[in-house]
């Protein structure tokens, strides 16, 4: 039923997921980890990776059982014509909320840090336009865009972290257990939904070459994100200390402003902003595509493209609704992130149903 069939391999898929998740490191998410773990924020990052991998297992299992199928088709096959589309709709609504928050979040970040005079609506329109164009080209275009841009984004982030290393004061990473092991584990569990965007890969499951590609993409993407998140919070806490780091919603921007190698290299934030734009473009494009394809599947449309433009316009308009930056953060932290668990429960439910009903490749059911 999807309008575009691609052939995303494991490498492209893992890079796509890493770009979608990794772009969160430019935003307030490292602050969440510091808030949960204090000096032990890196432990929270590692824990969300472990929990994220566990939560991704049903997606991997579904990918293996239903190679070449996306979430909407899998739901339909396993949960039937009534519950199936409903479950897909739940995922589509959550993805729409994430897209909306991401759009506004990046917009606010640009306005606060580098473009204070630019009307947010202009940035929202430009961001939506970019995402719309890429999403219209299909899953493969989104994945390839991420694949092409990732080296640039990664190099930008890695360079900032490397140049920040001389400032790291290891003592700031003590006491070693942060606020206590119990709080670290609970924090890790609570923010494990940071990797709930792995559902994007299942939503575009039809575009993967095979089940193994989807499996490797999901697991590697989360693993890479976990390592990047742990390194980012180690450097952030090692420089700013817990009290400042837990108040800083723009960690990589903060670090890039501190890069100061005499007169030779400074003001690297100009560089990081460029990578921000690229990261934002990949994240919003992938999310918009996944939302559209899931929504199309939920309402049994043969093609997602007619939905794209109205969906993008609605999401762009909705993204301007929160009255201020704090409202965006509250919306994300108190609603979107916790609801990520509900979204992660969908593949688990589908997998259980597939097992019970004997659907999928394992049961030779086409």
């Amino acid at each position, binding site marked *: 039923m999807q309008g575009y069939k691609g052939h995303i391999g494991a490498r492209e898929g893992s890079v796509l997921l890493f770009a979608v998740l990794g772009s969160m490191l430019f935003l307030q998410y490292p602050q969440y980890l510091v808030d949960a773990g*204090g*000096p032990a924020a890196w432990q929270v990052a590692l824990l969300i990776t472990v929990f994220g991998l566990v939560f991704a297992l049903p997606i991997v299992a579904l990918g293996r059982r239903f190679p070449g199928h996306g979430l909407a088709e899998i739901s339909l096959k396993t949960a039937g014509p009534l519950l199936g589309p409903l479950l897909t709709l739940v995922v589509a609504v959550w993805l729409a909320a994430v897209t909306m928050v991401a759009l506004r979040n990046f917009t606010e970040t640009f306005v*606060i*840090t*580098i*473009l*204070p*005079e*630019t*009307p947010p609506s*202009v940035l929202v*329109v*430009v961001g939506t*336009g970019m995402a719309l164009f890429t999403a219209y080209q299909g899953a493969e275009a989104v994945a390839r865009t991420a694949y092409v841009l990732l080296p640039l984004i990664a190099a930008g982030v890695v360079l900032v972290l490397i140049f920040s290393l001389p*400032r790291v*004061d290891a*003592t*700031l990473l*003590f*006491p*070693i*257990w*942060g*606020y*206590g092991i119990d709080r670290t584990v609970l924090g890790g569990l609570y923010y494990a939904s940071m990797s709930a965007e792995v559902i994007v890969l299942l939503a575009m499951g039809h575009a993967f070459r095979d089940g193994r590609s989807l499996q490797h993409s999901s697991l590697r993407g989360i693993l890479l994100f976990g390592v990047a998140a742990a390194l980012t919070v180690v450097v952030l806490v090692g*420089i*700013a*200390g*817990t*009290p*400042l780091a837990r108040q800083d919603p723009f960690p990589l921007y*903060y670090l890039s*402003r*501190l890069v*100061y190698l005499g007169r030779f290299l*400074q003001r690297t934030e100009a560089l990081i902003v460029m990578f921000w734009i690229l990261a934002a473009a990949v994240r919003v494009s992938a999310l918009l595509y996944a939302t559209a394809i899931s929504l199309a599947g939920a309402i049994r449309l043969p093609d997602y493209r007619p939905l794209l433009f109205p969906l993008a316009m609605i999401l762009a308009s909705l993204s301007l609704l929160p009255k201020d930056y704090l409202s965006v953060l509250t919306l994300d932290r108190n609603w979107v992130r916790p609801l990520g668990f509900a979204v992660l429960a969908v593949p688990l439910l589908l997998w259980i149903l597939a097992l019970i009903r004997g659907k999928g490749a394992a049961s030779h059911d086409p």
Partner: protein
Amino acid sequence: MIRRLAGRAFLLGLLLPLMAGCWNRVEIEQGAYVLAVGIDEGKSGPYAITVMIAKPSALAGKEGGGGNEPPVLLTTVEAPSLASARDLLHGYVSREVLFYHAQAIFVHEKLAREQGLPFLDEVLRFRQLRETAFIVVSREPAEEVLRRLKPELESNPVQYLEQLTYHHRDSGVIPATSQVSAVAALLNVGYAQPLTYYAATIDEEAETPRGSESPDVEFTAGELPRRGGTPVEMIGAAAFHGSRVVGVLDGEETRALLMLQNRFYTAHVAFRDPRHPEQYVTVHLSQGRPTRITVERLGERPAIRAEVTLEAELVAVPSGTDYFEPASQLELEQAIASQLLETMNSVIARTQEWEADVVGFGRHAIRHFPTVQAWEAYDWPSRYPEAEIQTSARVSLRRFGLTLTPTQASEEGGAQK
């Protein structure tokens, strides 16, 4: 196909103006770039804010070797914050005042002692100011220091200051860092108290010589025994307890502190000659091994041991004593270590009196606590003044310069004494 491509290119072209961020465009010649800021207590407003604005044409002219025009414009306004000072400045400064290039923030010691650093929040929050700017506490009002900051070797006063900050590596007489980011981080974590650069002006008209009557070299800002040069001195450090200045360390004490902090690199230091106490031996000191700080006991009264290991090279022995002899070599090593220990102990005693762990012994104590809650309950800042701190210094005379034995002139010099 070509028409389709042309259509897409046209659409992309339409998007280009949106990418330029035109709302935030500032032409270089429309900006008045602040290089340094001075903050004093105000009379009509909360703060008297002095801005040092670059005059690019004059700076370029000076670098080219010509022009007598001052390279900077100095002006002071009274305002509640740096950002709001812009509004007042815009009453008579034609260009848009921008703080993006502000590299130094001078604070009058009186203000920093009485009110602390209340503007720090703005420095961390206001996007035009950078966390890499360094804080300098000044003995005199910041406005006066900025007015008298007329370097002779550099055309740009801030470049001059920046060059001075590099001396922590080759003289060790100023703190390793005084950047806003480092000060803010320490203010918030509480296991060590911040230090900043300290500056003072000199009275060029004074007839009495500056400096104390002691034969030891004076390392206090504003009191350096000298003639000529820029009338502003930046040496030593201002010590904080929380956000308030509680004391000032001179250059020699700052160097001892750097040794304890394991941030000392090298310096040429004069010590009293053990065989001829009225004379000095100059050595090139460098770190031998990383300073070892051991927390031996926590509890009511923590016990800490600090071991400093240095290497030395003889640079000047005016007394003519032959320190190449193993016995005299040992004597000199012990004399240097003992003089260093005296300064280190004095620094520790003073900082304990100020209740300000500027050395950062808390860094080593914190590692013994498993959680933040346990560390906070221990309340290190209140324990530090009572801490029992033992220091030891070991100096190894490794090299003797380009000659091993005293020169004839040195021996005569020693004999004459």
